[in-house]
């Protein structure tokens, strides 16, 4: 039997398959199915400060929109003040997951204001999360804003939050940094216990009929994993923090490659949404089989064995490989067409 144990954010996990922040954690039954299928931990869907704010604003607008100044109607709806807010429901779900599941629960937070990160981060810790994933993203639409300034914002959030919470913190990052390795090292120095590479975002799409911009997100595909594997490979061994890969990990091959490159865990999302929580079990079995067939004893043994530091040809991770890639589309002169 291969030892699948891994360590992520200081948490001892029984294997490296961790469902990532997704709607799967919204339903308690589905979460239990994931655990039963072998998930070693669970990242909850994100608590969005923006949504907390918009709910409050909506409530406020709704409350005040009622009055149009007509004698017969000083309001149009029964008004409730004692309902469960989005934040209440999130924290309750976190509490339920902690109570009913044995695996570690990593909560996810997306803040928009410095106070928000701290306030909601604290509430998540209080509700019993084992770790906190910060889902930080920033579309750098301001032409005056330098790369340094953006990185400083990330660091500031992390630094301040780590003063207020004691559970491990991991940063889920965008791929758009000029020098990701350097930046990740700075995150580590600022107290991050891990990074998740890389976040996928809604992209603005253009509706050709209405000419309106509509945000869109598609499920990922394995093609997206290679970029992530590269950066894991480059990162491995250069920092001490945990590394998770996320985005496009669908097959056991994807997973194994990530582990070879140096990931501590691989996050799964789209594939589980497509095939259901049970699919995790199959992936786990396939992983086990592959490791057995290839005579690995443990994940530990395999992890990072193809990182840049240990790669057969380390330069491959750094090369842009234009020519080879292009060539792969060119027929060999010996092939008859």
């Amino acid at each position, binding site marked *: 039997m291969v030892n699948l144990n891994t360590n992520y954010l200081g948490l001892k996990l029984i294997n490296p398959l961790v469902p990532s922040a997704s709607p799967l954690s919204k339903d308690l039954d589905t979460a239990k199915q994931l655990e039963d299928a072998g998930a070693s931990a669970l990242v909850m869907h994100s608590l969005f400060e923006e949504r*907390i*704010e918009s*709910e*409050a*604003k*909506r*409530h*406020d607008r*709704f*409350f*005040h*929109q009622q*009055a*149009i*100044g*007509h*004698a*017969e*109607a*000083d*309001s*149009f*709806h*029964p008004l*409730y*003040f*004692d*309902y*469960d*807010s989005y*934040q*209440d429901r999130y924290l309750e779900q976190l509490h339920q997951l902690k109570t009913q599941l044995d695996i570690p629960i990593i909560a996810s937070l997306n803040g928009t204001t410095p106070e*928000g990160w701290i*306030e909601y981060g604290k509430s998540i810790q209080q509700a019993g999360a084992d770790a906190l994933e910060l889902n930080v993203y920033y579309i750098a639409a301001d032409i005056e804003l330098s790369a340094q300034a953006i990185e400083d914002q990330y660091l500031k959030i992390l630094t301040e939050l780590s003063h207020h919470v004691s559970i491990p913190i991991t940063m889920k990052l965008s791929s758009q940094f000029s020098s990701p390795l350097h930046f990740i090292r700075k995150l580590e120095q600022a107290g991050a216990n891990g990074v998740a590479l890389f976040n996928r975002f809604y992209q603005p799409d253009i509706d050709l009929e209405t*000419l309106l911009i509509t945000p869109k997100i598609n499920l990922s595909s394995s093609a997206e994993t290679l970029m992530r594997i590269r950066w894991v490979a480059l990162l491995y061994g250069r920092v001490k923090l945990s590394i998770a890969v996320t985005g496009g990990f669908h097959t056991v091959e994807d997973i194994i490659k990530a582990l070879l490159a140096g990931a501590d865990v691989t996050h799964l999302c789209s594939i589980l949404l497509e095939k259901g929580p049970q699919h995790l079990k199959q992936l786990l079995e396939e992983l086990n089989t592959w490791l057995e067939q290839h005579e690995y004893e443990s994940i530990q043994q395999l992890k990072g064995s193809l990182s840049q530091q240990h790669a057969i040809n380390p330069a491959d991770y750094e090369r842009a490989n234009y020519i080879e890639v292009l060539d792969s589309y060119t027929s060999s002169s010996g092939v008859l067409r």
Partner: protein
Amino acid sequence: MSKQSLLMIDGNQAAAIVAHKLNEVIAIYPITPASPMGEAADEWSSRGQTNLWGTVPEIIEMQSEAGAAGTIHGALQAGALATTFTASQGLLLMLPNMYKIAGELTPTVFHIASRSLACQALSIFGDHSDVMAARMTGFAMLSSNSPQEVMDLALIATAASLEGRLPILHFFDGFRTSHEQSKIKAFDDTIYHAMIDDEWVKTQHARGLSPEHPVLRGSSQNPDVYFQARESVNPYYSNMPDLMQKTMDLFASLTGRHYHLFDYIGDPRAERIIILMGSGAETVEETVDYLVKQGESIGAIKVRLFRPFSAKALITALPINCTNIAVLDRTKEPGADGEPLYKDVVTAIAQYCSSENCKFANMPRMIGGRYGLSSKEFTPAMVKAVFDHLKLPQQKNPFTIGIHDDVSHHSLIWDETFRTDAHSNTFQAVFFGLGSDGTVSANKNSIKIIGENTDLHAQGYFVYDSKKSGAVTISHLRFGPAPIHSTYLIAESDANFVACHQPIFLERYDMLDLATKDAVFLLNSAADDKTVWNTLPKKMQQQIIEKQIKFYRIDAYAVAEKTGMGKRINTIMQTCFFSISGILPKGEAILAIKQAVEKTYGKKHKRMVELNFQAIDETLACLHKIEVPQQVSSNIELHSPVPDSAPEFIRKVTGEIIAGHGDSLPVSLFPADGSYPLGTCAYEKRNLALEIPVWETDLCTQCGKCVMVCPHAVIRSKMFSTSDIADAPQTFKHTPMLGKDFPAGLEISYQVAPEDCTGCSLCVDICPIRDKSNASRKALNMVQQAPLKHQEKKNWDYFLSLPEYDRRLLKATTIKGAMVMQPLFEFSGACAGCGETPYLKLASQLFGDRMVVANATGCSSIYGGNLPTTPWAKNSEGRGPAWNNSLFEDNAEFGLGIRVAIDKLSEQAVELLNQLKSHIDKELVEVIINADQSNEAGLYDQRQRVTSLRQQLQSIDSSIAHQLLQLTGDLCKKSVWIVGGDGWAYDIGYGGLDHVLASGRNVNILVLDTEVYSNTGGQTSKATPRGAVAKFSASGKASAKKDLARLAMDYENVYVAHVAYAGKDTQTLRAFLEAEAHDGPSLIIAYSPCIAHGIDLSNNHQQQQLAVKSGHWPLFRFNPNRIKQGKNPMHLDSAAPSIPYQDFIRTEARFDMLWQTHPEDAEKYLVQAQRDVTHRYHYYQQLAELDWSDSMSVAAFKAKNKHKAEEI
């Protein structure tokens, strides 16, 4: 004595608290001003709040007040404790059941916020016309005069009714007591238990009909016994006054508040007495207190138990020295020789004086007067005038007080400057706000803060205008150490504080007329401290200097913007009030506001709390006292409400009402039958829009959609030839007509009325054309109004001066063509972006010159016909829609009556015409009789013929010719439109609607379906969709929306259309044309997004489109004329549902809020609603595919689906 907690609530809340506490079944139906009682009861039950006996009262909304009364009758007969709330016409609908309830000696209390009845006009305001119409039902009648009394007498009434077995009508003045915020003492359960003997409850339960101990009630009786049986109840009535007094005495021992059947106030040896009941008695009390101190020999009697009328108690209450009595009635019985209370008093005293041992030396002189109809002001000055009048040797009987009657000369004159000393220690504040700016809610909040945090008594009363967009609200707040009895508005030169929350009011209202010397004036203005003085009108500057008013300024919108509050200024203005009014120590006041904010937002929305706190702090920093110059420097005069060029009636009556001077208009200026001129909204330039649409001629494709969707008819298109516009203003925009339907040389203009636009932006939203190089630029774009106002006003006037294009040449079947037709429904006061009005405007464009409208009570009758102004208008020939509103419940029948009369008169005209054949051009007679009036040309020709007929008739001197002359108008086609909302069509008026559909008569029924009772504040109707939260469905509506179209289609002779103009405008247009062309009943059910959906109306079109796409609102037309041709009458105009139902409903707060309050129900209803949608679409789809030449298969299909629907 038990502990009594203090509450800041209004009379409706007070009644509802007791009713909910002491009942098991509550049947409700919305009607102003009683609706809030039902709403509160429903909300409490939906939260599981229990009554005194630990069970949650069952609340059931009925289809009408008649239904509610029937339900209550049933519930009482089944042994439950049951009640209802109503007012006005609603009470009239309950009368038949009230006789039964009383006849069967059933204990119950109906709580009535008494209101005027609709006579020459509807009115939602308070008087006793309604309860007086119920005085013969056998209900006992008990009057409360203030919110505290409402609470107290509601409990006393319930106890007395249960013990004495008589039902009781507990009434209080609508829109005074019902809506007056006041600090009152509430009871704890020990008081309830002490007042209500559980044995009585057991007896009521035991009297319930039951097969365990069966009886027969409600028998029919013959002449031999009915009379005797009717007399058998007498002991209960003779017993009630003593029993009521005993109950009042018990209550006094528990609470310290002692009531009597007749409460006397004033000099114990008074000679002159006023007798009255209702909130006016409070004002009388205040005046009597003052005048007695001045040495006047006066007093007053407050009548509490009006039925059974206890002459004995009345006589006991009257002082022995009394020589002159004025009885004041807040009702009118035209033709009677006195109003009801007066006649009862006269009878009682006359009977007493003719008996032995009469305590009076002589029978007092007694006169009866009317006052306060429809909440007309009733002030101490008027009370004094009545007392003074009683001194005169010659007295008017009857008299009126409060109006100037220059027709019958019944009115008394009063001295408007008279004041009591009631306010020497009272702080009085008046606030002018916009309906939507939160002024009223902020003031209610202020009253709560002061009432609950201090020992001060507080009173709040709110005056609204009749508009729904840009409505003006005036809040009257009083605070003082003693209880406040002033049931009248804050008078001229009396206010210690005047606030103007919108600078636009500066030139409209004489606000500082209200200010007393040394008052504080607070102005929200964007002008800075240096320039703000010069923005004030001349008169206002004068008043500030003369009255030494302290003047403060804040730029509330700037503070709101800066602190992230958007456009919400209520907290900011409230902070200013507390900061400078001196009503509370500043620090204490600010702390109290902050606590109130925390209470509102709770722990959940900390950021909102922070935002509000920031706004409060920033307000304190930005509020400045303005140094008042010694000299007046302004030349600004107050706006004239209508132009000098307006017709006399508009200037003398309409204009005065707009200016807020309606109270001073004398009787002679009013049309006695309630007929008013059309087109008056056009005079009322409200300048509501911050931004107005600007037309880009280079992009426009002249599709006409903007004109189609404009809810206020402020964007118009007109066609003309180039030569017509030689004198056009330079900035007047026009462009050559595009399209093959139009001859060369024609131009078209799309012009906006800048001062009538509400800025809703729906025209820009619907505009389909974008600049190819800049997608953000459309053929219409919103631009700031102020810089354009002057120029566009000129252009608008010029546009109006151009002649209308000949209707005969327009293609009404295209949006572009139809939208060139002149709208005869314009500038209504409906909400900005209203979903209803575009349909009415469309009908007025297509048929306005031949339309008669029967309008059910509701939003459309309010924005359509609430004085001062009406949007219904005439064309240049003087033709236009003739409009009337009968009632809420009978509109279909009312419209049918109009149709029947028109048909009859037209038939008579033809008969007379035939009789005159030999005297008139024979050919003309033939052509008139057989005229085809199905199109504009035919209509035009017929009108020409009728004109020529009239000329010929003038020269014939015969009675037949004279008779025909009166009826010639009936030879021209008239289009009858029956218009109303879903509350009318689906609920209260459905029986009549159904009958009219079955009648086969040629009427056009337009149902403006907002899926709730919009006008009364969003109560559930049978049109409300499953899962929607509305008032009376606080936990989501559990049943599906009634399919009115399907019911109508079943008749197979009714034209039925389901339309949503932003879903498919051409389908809407076609439906209107087909409906009108159908020679039989037509029903158009029109989807009308409403503020009650919990959406911003700028999303009106998007919501319509989502409703159509999700299958919530399928578009179709069912044309029975096709059946005759063996064709399928059903035509589906929208595709199969293409988005999940969820994608529609999650965008509207009415549905979405259920996920927060009742998430499991929300999910359940969603699943069911999705099934409803799918089922309905399949049904319609199959109906559209049926072979209608085979009637058997049609019948079989319908039967099968009926069964399926029932299963669902």
